[in-house]
């Protein structure tokens, strides 16, 4: 192997690794020196730029049915070959294969710190599962044109392995990873906005520069009890914290939330609370915390029997510039705690 060329490992399923068809789908991970089966196309596409030092093969069923074990075993086989680049697949429309390729690429990136690339058809379930973490090159549904498909994988893989800048998805034929990157456009934003409006007004096609968020709709569950029999909790993302902010909830981009007892309190004493939230003018909430978390009125409703009980813990975080992932996690954790505590309904106050 010439100095300076890359060491490449290929990952294939039993079919493309030429072990056999569905009858061999249960075979466990194994490694062969050099390029076999579809990996020969990878070697051909690499030319002098790299050498396929090993081909790692695993049956589709083995990979699907004991996914974690298979991935761990595959990663150690890959590691032993000390590659600079892992080329997994392409898996085309083969679902089990695609998922295995994605899982192996993620693990190899994380554990071996090497570049990885895979390829799949748009409808392969591996695309949606892994495109955010792995460069998945778009391929056809079937392996009818193996070499040109593999050439595109290898071209992107070489750039990744060499640490070169990667262009837009359309330029390299990979599925958008759902990450954003600043670039310099040809015209300023004002000119682009006016041009887009003129297209919209004329009924011409236009392309928005920001995809609409695909938040899954969350249906509000029906309260099965009457309010008079229900336990109600107060939860806010408006940043109310006890003075001193004991949980260190961040002023923006929060990753923490607090659980604060209101046991024995008929109202909140402004002197005992603070608010680190940097997304709105907190003057009025600091002056009177009930403007954000209405413990006073909720206690009155509890006294009068309008609600069964006020939950004795309030939950609070700072909702500004918080990532979707953190928001979802904190929401899930708070919801689990509330459910475990027998809370029937929640009043969420936001700002």
């Amino acid at each position, binding site marked *: 192997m010439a100095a300076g060329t890359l060491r490449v490992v290929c990952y294939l399923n039993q079919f493309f690794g030429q072990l056999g068809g569905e009858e061999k789908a249960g075979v466990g991970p194994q490694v062969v020196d050099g390029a076999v089966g579809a990996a020969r196309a990878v070697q051909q596409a690499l030319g002098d730029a790299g050498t396929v030092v090993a081909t790692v093969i695993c049956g589709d069923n083995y990979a699907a049915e004991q996914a974690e074990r298979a991935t761990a075993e595959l990663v150690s086989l890959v590691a032993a070959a000390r590659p600079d680049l892992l080329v997994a697949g392409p898996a085309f429309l083969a679902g089990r294969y695609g998922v295995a390729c994605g899982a192996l690429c993620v693990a190899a990136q994380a554990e071996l710190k090497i570049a990885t690339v895979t390829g799949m058809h748009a409808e392969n379930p591996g695309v949606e599962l892994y495109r955010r973490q792995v460069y998945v090159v778009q391929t056809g549904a079937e392996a009818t044109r193996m070499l040109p498909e593999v050439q595109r994988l290898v071209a992107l893989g070489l750039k990744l392995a060499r640490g070169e800048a990667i262009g837009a998805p359309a330029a390299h034929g990979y599925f*958008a990873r759902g990450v954003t990157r*600043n*670039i310099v*456009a040809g015209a300023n*934003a004002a000119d682009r906005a006016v041009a887009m409006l*003129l297209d919209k*007004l004329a009924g011409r096609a236009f392309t928005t520069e920001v995809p609409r968020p695909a938040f899954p709709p969350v249906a509000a569950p029906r309260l099965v009890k009457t309010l008079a029999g229900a336990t109600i909790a107060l939860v806010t993302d408006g940043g109310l914290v006890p003075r001193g902010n004991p949980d260190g909830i961040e002023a923006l981009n929060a990753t923490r939330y607090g659980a604060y007892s209101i046991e024995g309190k008929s109202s909140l004493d402004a002197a005992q609370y603070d608010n680190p939230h940097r997304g709105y003018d907190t*003057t009025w909430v600091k002056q009177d915390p009930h403007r954000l978390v209405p413990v006073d009125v909720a206690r009155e409703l509890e006294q009068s029997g309008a609600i069964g009980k006020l939950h004795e813990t309030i939950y609070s975080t700072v909702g500004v*510039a918080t990532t979707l992932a953190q928001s979802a996690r904190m929401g899930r954790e708070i919801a689990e705690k509330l459910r475990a505590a027998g809370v029937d309904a929640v009043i969420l106050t936001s700002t």
Partner: protein
Amino acid sequence: MRLELGWSDVDEVTAAPATRLAGKRLEVDLDGLRELLSADPRLTRIRLDLAHPGERCRIARVFDVVAPRAKTDGGEDFPGVLGSVARAGHGRTLALGGVAVVATDQQTDNVGTLAVIDMAGPNAALSAFGRTHNLVISAWPSPSTERSDYLAAVRLAALKTAVHLAGTAREAEPNRVDVFELPPSPRVPPELAHLPRVAYVFQIHSHQRPTGLDEGILYGDPVRRMLPTIVHPNEVLDGAVLRGFMGRSVTTWAIQNHPMIRALYAQHGRTLWFAGVVVTVAQATEPERVRSAFLTAGLVAHALGADGAVLTKIGGGAPHVDMAQAAAHCEALGVKTTAVVEDMSTDGSAEGMLLFDFPGVDALVNVGSSQEPIILPAMERVVGADDIASKLLGETRATYGGLCGAIEQVGATRVMAEVR
């Protein structure tokens, strides 16, 4: 209403014994200017520096940037803040091309409002202020001056300087004259009546942070209780609107050279009819937000009779939603909209780019992610931040939002976030 901007191009700025414009060379008597600015009792010490394009110089602690402008024929400069309250947007205004006044903030808190300008290297090309000759003002507060008063004093110093510099062009023959003339909105000549009528909805402040008493934004008004109102676009171009003290990715310079108003003027009478400008503020509470959103849409649809509207925002996340809510109300009244947004994601994920999803608000332009990291290369000189200069000389990490002029939320910049 007719406004003429008479531009004198400047390609050299030097310190000199007298302030004057000699051809394309602007000579500035820095001592004389310092004396003029020192009259403000809210400031104790004033330092003036010049920074030129191509120089390995970093301007730090940038608070705002002002374009040199001066009214002629008795017009008021920056009315309500520097000059007396009077209508702006008509007559002749002197403008210097290639020069900017950069105000710095010497108090260390509130890092979010501070930014840098690189005069050389890759970041210089990303900002309009990497290509202008910059007069940098560093001023320190006198002992009893509170934060808001200090910022008001710093901004006033920048405005005085802007007028002082542009005044040198009083006797000069301008290199070019931009004419901005828009008849009263309903008076469309019959031969142009087929053009779509387009309004601009300009959010000029966000009440995420309350304004100071001296934080004049619209003709000197701190817009604390402002409801949406219609102004002539020339008023915006001619100093009626100044940026407030929360400077996230907007400069006064960009408002004085407003790119959206210029873009609409450029198309006016050709592909569209510029119907007018509605100025709004982003509100702090839900009833205020809803009220402002439908009043805005009402002015756009009913008063200006617009078929379409472009909208921009200021500040962060709440104003982003506030703007979209106004756009949704416009769409509900049959007015087509496009809006200019920042990429609001804080983790670089496409899912986090937008904080709203309203029907019809589907045509969005973005000015990039202010959170994306950027490398500031080593420089030879730092101005505007003597006490932290050593930290800012070497290669430093920053974000696009920390590079003044790389992202202008009113749409002056070309940086955009692409989904990958």
